[in-house]
């Protein structure tokens, strides 16, 4: 009996062995992608997703990191590739791509590359799987990544599902069109190569592993993986009490505040999230296509109730996501969508808020939510242009048993870019990157802090930046008694007003400073251990004043004016005053 035969019965031990093998293949795929990528957005920030799919287009494994908006939208978008190019129309060496926002990752900058994997058999070449990845391109033409467009056509070059390589040969015409439309053709072409190569690496490893286990098809394995995962998800849903749980969340929006709503219905082992009642679609690019809305909604459910099971198609099946057409969470073509993450990243906060009353020990308070992205543009003294896309993170919400994380992305999984890399690639100079005191929302567990960063330009030329910043008007709310986090903001050295979602032209010597929002707290701050408050003060996360006002902890500081270094020994809790402060509020 071969292993493949045993796989049909899917002995749990064999399944465990094969499943792990598949997961390690997608990790190799991602490693190859990052190591060969060109743009900072890919190689440093890792704004990407990598996954393996069965021949029906079901995602069966994803790499360990990446960003949920890409992973899930790639997973649910794969069927469009299969519709456009049914198996019979594909040959070994073919590579497909698209950046259709409605079908894939909701933004024209994100290209998905899908590669059919063929295996030589006695019957000829057989299609056995697909490997795909979704990556944010350094540029896609149009008006640069920004929220300011009024139609998707302005946002850049649209690529319907088509072939990038045909039987191993470059689609020269398509490469010419792409190169001719983007501001940084070498980076974009290099990244397309990296995206192609990493699928090849994944495919080659899959073939080796099929040969080794004498598998004719991966379908029995795929079915078993999906069935087990779906089962686990259903069991997790069943543990939530049946009912309807609602929440709403306000964001700055563009032309005016935006509300997004969720009605979560738990019915046995099925869960439905309906976003009816959310704001109408915006005239600007902050609209989140349904596929992207689905991605972050389903991510939130998975992280909330079943984080330990590897992610695949099975996790989607018992979760249903709907949003009325024409709303900001399901816009109609040709709505502008480039900054869809600004809204989409709030979805986990929204869902957690709805479920918190029934899962009080499992979820986090609201955090900065939306990643702060900026596209900087400028030129060197010699006139040569540069473009840099930068992601920055504020604080995450506090957890029921732990503080929030300072300046860590959530729900996005992307990374920042080192100052030294920024300054090597552009003519920008950063003035600071520091944790912002008192920005984390107070609570028994404190929200994560935001950061303050600043930029100037050294080339003596005009420069610009296009921010996609939120939570400058609506702070991250705390949960179950926790307080809200600090707002984010933006300031120019010229004193001019700076809109958080517009391209801003800068004089050569002008500087910009931004401070990112903090996360909300969890539980009543007056229940926080005074020793924890003391530590936060000594470390400079919380000021002496905030300790008293927000936490009811009176801290005396014995630091002399001539001392430049403050150490924990300088701070002492005034026990009496603290007792009084906390009692006063307790009785009021």
């Amino acid at each position: 009996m071969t292993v493949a035969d045993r796989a049909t019965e899917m002995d749990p031990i064999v399944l465990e062995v094969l499943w792990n093998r598949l997961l390690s293949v997608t990790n190799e795929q991602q490693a190859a992608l990052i190591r060969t990528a060109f743009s900072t957005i890919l190689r440093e920030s890792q704004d990407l997703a990598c996954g393996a799919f069965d021949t029906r287009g079901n995602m069966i494994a994803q790499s360990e990191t990446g960003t949920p908006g890409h992973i899930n939208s790639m997973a649910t978008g794969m069927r469009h590739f299969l519709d456009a190019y049914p198996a019979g129309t594909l040959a070994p060496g073919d590579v497909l791509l698209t950046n259709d926002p409605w079908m894939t990752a909701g933004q024209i900058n994100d290209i998905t590359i899908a590669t059919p994997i063929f295996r030589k058999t006695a019957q000829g070449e057989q299609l056995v799987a697909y490997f795909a990845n979704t990556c944010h391109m350094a540029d896609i033409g149009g008006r640069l990544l920004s929220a300011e467009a009024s139609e998707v056509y302005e946002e850049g070059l649209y690529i319907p599902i088509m072939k990038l390589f045909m039987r191993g040969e470059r689609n020269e015409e398509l490469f010419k069109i792409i190169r001719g439309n983007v501001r940084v053709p070498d980076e974009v072409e290099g990244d397309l190569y990296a995206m192609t190569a990493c699928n090849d690496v994944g495919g080659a490893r899959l073939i080796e592993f099929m040969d080794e286990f004498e598998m004719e098809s991966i379908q029995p394995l795929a079915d078993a993986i999906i069935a087990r995962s779906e089962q686990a998800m259903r069991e997790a849903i069943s543990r939530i009490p049946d009912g309807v749980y609602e929440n709403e969340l306000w964001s700055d929006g563009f032309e005016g505040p935006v509300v997004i709503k969720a009605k979560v219905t738990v019915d046995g082992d099925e869960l439905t999230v309906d976003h009816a009642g959310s704001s109408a679609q915006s005239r600007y690019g902050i609209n989140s296509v349904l596929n992207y809305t689905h991605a972050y909604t389903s991510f939130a459910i998975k992280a909330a109730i079943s984080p330990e099971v590897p992610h695949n198609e099975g996790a989607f099946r018992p979760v249903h996501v709907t949003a009325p057409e024409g709303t900001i969470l399901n816009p109609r073509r040709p709505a502008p969508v480039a900054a869809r993450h600004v809204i989409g990243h709030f979805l986990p906060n929204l869902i957690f808020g709805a479920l918190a009353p029934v899962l009080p020990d499992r979820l986090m308070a609201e955090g900065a939510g939306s990643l702060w992205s900026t596209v900087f543009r400028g030129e060197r003294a010699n006139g040569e242009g540069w473009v840099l896309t930068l992601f920055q993170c504020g604080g995450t919400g506090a957890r029921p048993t732990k503080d929030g994380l300072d300046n860590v992305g959530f729900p996005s999984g992307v990374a920042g870019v080192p100052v030294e890399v920024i300054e090597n690639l552009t003519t920008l100079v950063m003035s600071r990157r520091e944790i912002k005191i008192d920005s984390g929302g107070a609570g028994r567990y404190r929200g994560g802090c935001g950061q303050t960063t600043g930029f100037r330009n050294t080339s003596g030329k005009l420069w610009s930046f296009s921010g996609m910043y939120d939570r400058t008007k609506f702070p991250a709310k705390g949960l179950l008694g926790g307080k809200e986090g600090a707002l984010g903001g933006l300031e120019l050295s010229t004193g001019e007003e700076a809109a958080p979602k517009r391209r801003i032209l800068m004089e050569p010597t002008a500087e910009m400073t931004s401070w990112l929002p903090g996360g909300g707290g969890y539980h009543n701050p007056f229940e926080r251990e005074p020793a924890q408050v003391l530590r936060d003060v000594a470390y400079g996360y919380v000021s002496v004043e905030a300790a008293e006002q927000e936490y009811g902890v009176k801290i005396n500081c014995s630091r002399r004016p001539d001392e430049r270094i403050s150490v924990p020994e300088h701070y002492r809790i005034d026990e009496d005053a603290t007792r009084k402060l906390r009692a006063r509020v307790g009785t009021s």
Partner: protein
Amino acid sequence: MTMSYRVGVDIGGTFTDLILVDDESGAFTVGKSLTTPNDPSQAVEDVLRDALERAQVSPERLATIIHGTTLVTNSIIERKGSKTALLTTKGFRDAVEIGREMRYELYDLFLEMPRPLAPRYLRLEVDERVLATGEVVQAPNHDDLEPLVRELQDKGIEAIAISFLHSYANSDHERGVAELIGRVAPEMRISLSSEVVPEIREFERTSTTVANVYVQDRVDRYLRGLERRLRELGFGGQLFVMLSSGGVGTIDTATRFPIRLLESGPAAGALATAYYGQLTGVNDLMSFDMGGTTAKLCVIEKGAPLTANDFEVDRVYRFKRGSGLPVKVPVIEMIEIGAGGGSIARIDALGLLKVGPDSAGSEPGPVCYGRGGTEPTVTDADLILGYLDPAFFLGGKMQLDLDATERAIKEKVADKLGVGVPEAAWGIHQIVNESMANAARVHAIERGKDARSFPLFTFGGAGPVHGFRVAEALHAPAMIAPFGAGVTSTVGFLSAPLQFDFVRTSYGRLDELDWAAVARIFDDMEASGREILLASGVAEGEISYARSVDARYIGQGYEIRVPVPAGRLTAESRAEVVAAFDQVYEQLYGRTGPSVGLEVMSWRLVVSGPRPELRLQVGAADAGGPEQARKGERRVYHPEYRGYHPTPVYDRYRLAPGATFEGPAIVEERESTVVIGPKGRVAIDEFRNLRVEM
């Protein structure tokens, strides 16, 4: 009296192991003693004294002692380093805490980030600024800094790391401030990022520099103390330390750059594998060291382990990349897997059998130890399968409880899966072997190697028990179990050359390079290396230099390491570098990239002394063929027989070179047991290593 003896000592978590070798005759003595955590040099002295006595050798006859220690790793994990401050560029004291702003696990809402070694209140900013080009925008004001340094001194700060932006391009400010501190506070430990790791990316560079100075005092005091102790014993030779790169360094280098000792113990295991490979003419191998809680795998190619430049220490999630403090030092590239003999088996939420990463450790240990362990482990499964003899564990020093083990596996695994105890035990055994094989495959493939071509070299307590089946899963051609698996890593110490790594970051496009400047960089690094080696007693003619460059396509973010030709570098050298790059890149990623040209980031040099000759004399006085070595037979589980099968048991010490036999077989020695499946063909080589053809 000739100084013909050399000593290798490895201080592990539990045991301090030693080997004493006479390089003239090849005669050797091994020693083992419990590690003395409060003063690890105590155990070194004890075990050395004992070995010298048994071998009847006087300490004056020791030429060199080479030493490996986990002190650095432990100091960081246990946070037992110096009270350390960090000086940064104004505005960037939090760079080391903000890090890369990225979650290393997507779905876990409760994850935590690693804590920097220098707390926020001891991270102080200096008003200075250098640009990416090295151009100075703001010079530090030393008059202003002097009182700050005094204040640090007054507050009991013992160590200062200095890490300014772009110091890899211009280190003047770091050096100036260091001089000032040296003048004001001569007792202060100081590390400069431009010396510890002169490379771009401030988070990683700063993290490494802080770690370096954080452990410096402890390492310095320990090594000086050890040296003193050895001198008092009458040792007049040279004391060297094993580096994580696989070379050995002097005490002076080790105390300047203690962070380079980070993985010195495991490095020795990889080197031992390389040594056995050279001895037996097998230059490509995969080392497989499996102990109680973890296993380590390493590819040995052309007689040398692969090296890398990134490492993480003190991971919050022990085996999760991204959850630890980044450390950029040359390290032997190993992959560590959270599975060993003590790893616990359980049924997870999906109804699947999982093994590890939680471990029963040595206390309470596996169920079979009878010390209160209740969770079934890999060792328990090995016992059920007949791989271990309940009466001959650790050479009979410890009795194993078979009944309790059966009960635990039945209750916790077999009943839940609806299978019998032997099948459940085989499942545990197989899953752990698969994790090893998976890790080995990813590890090999990430480096463009094919795991199927490497014989598996197994050691550590559990390595030889699992090696055969891991080799089978990898489709490896053979498995090798060295003689004396218990002291294998100490052999590695004695086979390592004296070696130093140098690096200079110097960014440029390959087609615009000033090759005269590159030649100067190498001349400079070569001169520094030569000086150290000459001072350590290596003859000029025996020094070798290996040059390489980290290069990439223009615009990429990660480099690959490519060899640089020896001799005079000129514009002609460019073509050679390009050819080498294409070859390495294609091997790694299957295709070359777009035609955009190459850029170089760092020039590297490894300066080495000669590889020491090491030939161990393995006597085989009362050994012979398999008949003579056969000590019995027991029922052992082999899936090929769908269950237990009578299997001969051999005494390792009585198998002489040239002996051959077929599997299935069990070969027992004191520290370990070699399990051989039915398809294996065994031969004992001239050095008494056991080689199984698969």
